[in-house]
């Protein structure tokens, strides 16, 4: 059963209507994403053709008089989604044990200016003129609105009349899993997923994600200086292998090295002299 978008009630001729009429429709968001081509790196299936009206389960959003309140509600849905995609881990008291997507700035990655630079780096975009970029003002809000609407539609199938962000954790996960299986919804979810993983593993705004998976912290994140140079002690001090006894450090459990300094066992019967010359080149 397809979810239905909740109706808002606002006078269509109000001032808010005139302001909100600049909000891009979901169709326009998809068209823009398609034009940007950014979904190519995020999607694993075909994007729904945004011109296919029969595939759209809901209409363009009606006017909303409570724009600010709804924006925060929408953003909470998006934040809740990000916490499903890469969850934070907390103890019983709520203290953070391991960061998730939100903690490393994924929400801020979900902005056009960040996507544009990433898409440029992927050669999915030519250099965009300034007027075009400024003409896409409102895209960020529209994107979050579209994602939030999709999430509420999925949530409706779990529990009726309950916003996505208010679902129990297991049902939020089930809703997201269902969303990834829906061709009309999965493109936007993949887009958000890409933002989460770029933020978490790309050290864009924080290196906490990389630290969470076992990388050392940056020497200086502001200066963009990652850990460089091995061997080191486990406390991080750079070691001079010519002056210090690495075996002694290792015996004390203090050595953080990049090599095992061991030759692998030979392979009986595999004679490389038939394929390699003395300098290590293929013959």
């Amino acid at each position, binding site marked *: 059963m397809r979810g239905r978008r909740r109706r808002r009630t606002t006078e269509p001729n109000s001032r808010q209507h005139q302001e909100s009429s600049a909000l891009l429709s979901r169709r326009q968001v998809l068209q823009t994403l398609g034009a940007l081509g950014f979904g190519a790196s995020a999607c694993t299936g075909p994007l729904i053709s945004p011109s296919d009206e029969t595939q759209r389960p809901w209409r363009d959003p009606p006017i909303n008089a409570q724009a600010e309140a709804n924006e925060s509600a929408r953003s909470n849905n998006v934040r809740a989604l990000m916490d499903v995609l890469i969850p934070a881990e907390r103890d019983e008291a709520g203290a953070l044990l391991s960061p998730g997507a939100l903690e490393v700035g994924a929400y801020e990655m979900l902005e056009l200016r960040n996507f544009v630079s990433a898409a440029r780096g992927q050669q999915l975009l030519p250099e965009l003129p300034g007027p075009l970029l400024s003409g896409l003002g409102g895209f960020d809000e529209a994107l979050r609105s579209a994602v939030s609407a999709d999430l509420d539609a999925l949530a409706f199938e779990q529990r009726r009349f309950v916003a996505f962000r208010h679902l129990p954790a297991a049902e939020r996960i089930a809703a997201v899993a269902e969303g990834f299986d829906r061709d009309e919804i999965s493109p936007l979810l993949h887009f958000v997923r890409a933002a989460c993983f770029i933020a978490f593993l790309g050290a864009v705004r924080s290196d906490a994600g990389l630290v969470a998976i076992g990388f050392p912290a940056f020497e200086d994140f502001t200066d963009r200086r990652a850990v460089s140079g091995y061997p080191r002690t486990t406390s991080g001090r750079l070691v001079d292998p010519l002056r210090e006894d690495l075996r002694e450090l290792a015996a004390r459990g203090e050595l953080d090295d990049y090599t095992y300094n061991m030759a*692998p066992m030979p392979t009986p019967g595999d004679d490389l002299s038939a394929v390699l010359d003395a300098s290590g080149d293929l013959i």
Partner: protein
Amino acid sequence: MSYKDIVIIGSGFGGAVMAARLGAYVRDALGGRYSVHLLEKGQDHTGTFDEESGGGPINEQGNRFQHTLSPDYLASIGDVFTDVQGAYQRGVPSMNVVAGRGLGGGSLLYDAVSLRAPTESFDQLNGARRLWPSRYSRAELNPYYQRVEQRLRVHRMRWTSEEAPYWQLATKRDFVFAEGCRRIGATATPLKLADENDANEGWWNQGQRFSGRQDLSKNYLRDAQQAQVSFRTECEVQRIGRAGRGYVIQGIDRRNGGSRAFELECRVLILAAGCVSSTGLLMRSQDNFTGDNILDPAEAITGEAVLGKHLSANGDYGVSGTIGADFAYDVEGQKGKPMSSFCPSFWRQHQFILIPFYAAPMYMSLGQISTLLPAERPSAQGRASTEPAQGPDGKSVPDWGMAYKSLLKSFSQRILTMGCLAIDACEGEVIVRDDDSLGVQWRVTTDATEARWTAAVDTMRSIYRALGGEIFLDTYRWQGTVNSSHPLGGCRMTEREETEHGVVDPFGESFNNRNLFVIDGAIIPTALGVNPSLTIAAVAESIADALIEGRETEGLASRLGAP
């Protein structure tokens, strides 16, 4: 309009060599009476070649590199050429190609592997026709390989500090890989690399903070600078055409945040912008070369274009997987050099080599290079026959959520990435889109390439299993995407009497346009099966010698009108 006698577009392994050699010749033999000028679309990371170039502050290592994975920064030092159309359609073959951007070209991004191409690479045939011009063979190129190795200070890695200084040792990743090879009856051996006193900083292929990497600014480009070659960076050439004294170059100057059109005239023009960029520049400029000067004579002869075609991915095929929880040694792939060993045991039978390497977790979580997803049928063969494994609920195992995050946490200890380089059939092509941007395509994989990749994947799978782990779903079998860091071809060289088979002659010169050259990876007519930087530089050295000596081709002095 400004004029330079010799203009070189691009500063990678072709352009840097030509700039150094021709610059020295002009200085020493021609009295410095002619100008040699290099245009580079990327930045001067050293801040010492182009005085008018901006950029970030110079760090204590004497360059502007950031040691980071930020996508914004990576976009400033590398280009990704892609196939937007194919990428949207599951099952339709698609392609991504990575290239360096900046002074030094590919040397800014590469893993410094410096292998000579094997004999078989040069002897490849199409029917009865040898694809390489006859002047090129492994034996013929050996002296030039040696020359490049000396200039780049290439040396061979070792396994223990009893054999070599500490900075030359292979990594933990390589040791694990070597044990996996041993368990399947194969052998891993240390690689030859172009690094020098490297600090083993890890993450090496994302920019370069330390002075250990022998990027081209430290050797050939420095030689060119000393030979009074002038440099202009952040200048992207859009089109070329014929002009009174030779050629006109049109581009955009983006130094100091600007965007100013420029034009430059020259007598001798050498395109060395990289495989995709050089080819694309010629494709975009075809309207400026008509009649007797057409750039692609093959199209006039056979009706089929050669320019832009026969793009090789060099058989690149990356995979990732886990090693067993019980295996005694951690991978710790993010430490040390990104590549330092390889397995040549399968070259004779299958013509592929295997190399373990560092791949950033971000790339694999975004499904580039490979994935971190279990495959439903890892034993499945062929490209379109493998799907993500399903969980107990019948849905695909998700690449998000707590379980995926937990898998990522094992990245350092248990996840090993490796890939093959192989002989492919050059099935790709360079395309120019309606907006003039460049892309690549790969639409059909030949049976021979498919079989070679299947053999390589089977071998890699057996290595993971021998180590107690399992291979993950790869992007080629799942999405049909060929990811290559070693593109070759697009502007093939061929014998002078075989103009229907190539775009340039054995010296990189356009058949119909005297003094217009392409001297970079674009002219390499086949896959090499090994990392290509050394071969591109050796070919450039060989052509430089021929031009300087006037051997088998018109000498440079004559081309410049020197008395």
